[in-house]
């Protein structure tokens, strides 16, 4: 039996949909009011500075807006409101550094990136020459050779490791998965020290582009292996089973069916790995060592590279050298961003399917 309650005894239902006026206009009004109030406070008291004002306004706005909500909707909504504002701020905060960094590097390096930067070296550059004389041709050549060699070393090894990780359930696969994770945490300078102690000191091979490539491949391997493993796992099991059911041996199934099906993802894995190592500086200090002239032979002799070039220029106290360093940094960051965008584009095309 349903007893009818008097309508007055029911609490008013909470309003779920807020009007435009309430969602946008009210907070905007609060923000303006707090901003003006803070400006007045700053004018009267010894407080000063634009960043300080912005920070105070932000804090003031959060408090005032929460109070406003508390007045009309109660504590639960007010708390939710504070959380929403803070979490959104954190979301925005992650984007700000990237914009600041790219904008700053572009502004500092742009006038240094001339034709000379790609065609000249530092061989004949004296300390009094302006920044437009001399360039980083040797460094660009070094980076291309070292990163290319590193990719040649790390990609097959990484892909085969990924194949093993996806197809074997044995103890080796379990151990390897843990170790690949551990390897991805190796500080880049330790990778450099490793190749230095092994290749340069014990094997008496001296500094070379190859040594740098080996150090970089140690850093690239985990990225390739992990990303490739994820991608291969996404290949539908039906494809593999159909191939095996039709009588193809396992190795043919892997090489002809599974890897081609995951092709775009595998390209992404490689390019992502390359973009990670292209900017590494620390391991190059003790493997490629750096030089001021072109050395096209990666097997022997010290070589420069873009990050190394920029690092060694910035270390210098001479303004023209620092300017060259910024130009190198700009070329480097553009290279990395381009590689990264390429990896994303390939991955996106793969997702859409043929």
């Amino acid at each position, binding site marked *: 039996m349903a007893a009818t309650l008097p309508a007055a005894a029911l609490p008013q239902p909470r309003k779920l949909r807020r009007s435009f006026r309430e969602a946008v206009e009210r907070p905007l009004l609060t923000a303006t009011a707090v901003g003006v109030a803070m400006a007045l406070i700053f004018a009267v008291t010894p407080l000063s500075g634009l*960043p300080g004002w912005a920070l105070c306004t932000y804090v003031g706005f959060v408090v005032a807006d929460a109070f406003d909500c508390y007045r009309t909707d109660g504590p639960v909504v007010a*708390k939710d409101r504070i*959380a*929403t504002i*803070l*979490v959104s701020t*954190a*979301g925005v*905060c*992650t*984007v700000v*550094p*990237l914009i*600041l*960094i790219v904008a*700053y590097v572009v502004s500092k390096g742009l006038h240094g990136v001339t034709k000379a930067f790609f065609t000249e070296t530092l061989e004949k550059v004296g300390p009094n020459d302006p920044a437009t004389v001399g360039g980083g041709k040797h460094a660009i050549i070094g980076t291309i050779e070292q990163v290319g060699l590193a990719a040649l070393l790390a990609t*097959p*090894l*990484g892909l*085969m*490791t990924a194949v093993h*990780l996806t197809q*074997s359930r044995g103890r*080796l696969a379990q*151990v*390897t998965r*843990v170790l*690949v994770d*551990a390897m991805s*945490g*190796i*500080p*880049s*300078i*330790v*990778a450099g*020290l*490793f190749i230095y*102690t*092994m290749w340069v*000191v*014990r094997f008496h091979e001296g500094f070379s582009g190859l040594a740098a490539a080996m150090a970089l491949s140690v850093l690239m*391997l985990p990225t390739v292996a992990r990303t490739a493993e994820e991608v291969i796992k996404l290949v539908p099991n039906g494809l593999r089973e159909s191939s095996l059911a039709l009588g193809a041996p*396992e*190795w043919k199934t*892997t090489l002809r069916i599974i890897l081609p099906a995951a092709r775009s993802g595998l390209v992404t894995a490689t390019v992502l790995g390359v*973009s*990670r190592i292209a*900017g590494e*500086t*620390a391991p190059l*200090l003790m493997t490629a060592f750096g030089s001021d002239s072109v050395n096209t032979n990666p097997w022997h002799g010290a070589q420069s590279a873009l*990050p190394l070039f920029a*690092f060694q220029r*910035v270390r210098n106290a001479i303004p023209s050298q620092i300017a060259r360093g*910024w130009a190198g940094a700009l070329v*480097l*960051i553009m290279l990395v*961003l381009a590689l990264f965008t390429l990896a*994303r584009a390939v991955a996106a095309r793969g997702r859409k399917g043929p």
Partner: protein
Amino acid sequence: MPEVDLLLEAARPLPEPRQITPGLTTGDRVFRFLAAAAAAGVLVILGLVALFLVLEAQPALKVAGFKFFTTFEWNPDGTPAHFGIAALIYGTAMIAVIALVVALPIAIGSALFVNEYAPARLGRPLVALLDLLAAVPSLIYGMWGLYYLQPHLQGTSRWLTDHVGFIPFFHTSRPVFGSSMFIAGIVVGLMVLPIVASVTREVLSQAPRGVCEAALALGSSRWGMIRSVILPFGRSGIVGAAMLGLGRALGETIAIALILAFNFKITTQILAPGGGSVAGLIANNFGEAGDAQRHALVAAGLALFVITLIVNTLARIIVNRTSKGKMED
């Protein structure tokens, strides 16, 4: 007549069954062996790293003995040589902690923002931008920190000393700011932010959706749902993500080498110039180092390798344990 046909059919001798050899072909065995060899290669490389670092560090460790871990000085070329990583380890840890204090709240906030607040239209580009932030080279962070951030943080540093200087960390004896652990820590914090944020996001996105919706259906606000379901579920995962960030921060090299003014004292004054970092010292001193110095630097690198390996492995274990999921729908 169909019956006769069927009988004839049945009477005909069956064809010889095709010979099927079960198991792997030779090609399979070779292929499996190659894949296993590649996987074992990872193991071998890690082993070689440890082996060669130990071999090369031995002369230095023999000279310093156990004092290597307790000495606050770095003078391997002197007679007698006097060097140890105590102050360096302290500085490294201090910078890493500052980095985490900066990175962790932003990382958790942005993970929640992408997972729970932002529409997919906004969330996906945000994730891509975070990945992009991870791809920016360490060197660029260092140069930016040195030339852009340091001048811009002078005022903040001074304000902190003047107004909250009673907290030991923000006290400075001389009003000189810059090249400090504070600035290095903030820059490293920005560098580890992407990895902490992406692991946190991954872990938090595995919170059981059914329980989240139940909380909302019971009248909880969005924040109430996050506090009662998502954060408790992801607590250990967040700890793991933070440790992963710690591992990265400990090994950060070039940015610190550019920003920090090295000294070998243990101080709580994070705003003043000075501090130390194992990786940064190696990068700074390696170029001009003589034999004794190089051995000592390799020994420091070995210590760094062991520490980061332990921190990272622990972190991964914690993260993996969360992601298996103990809370069921």
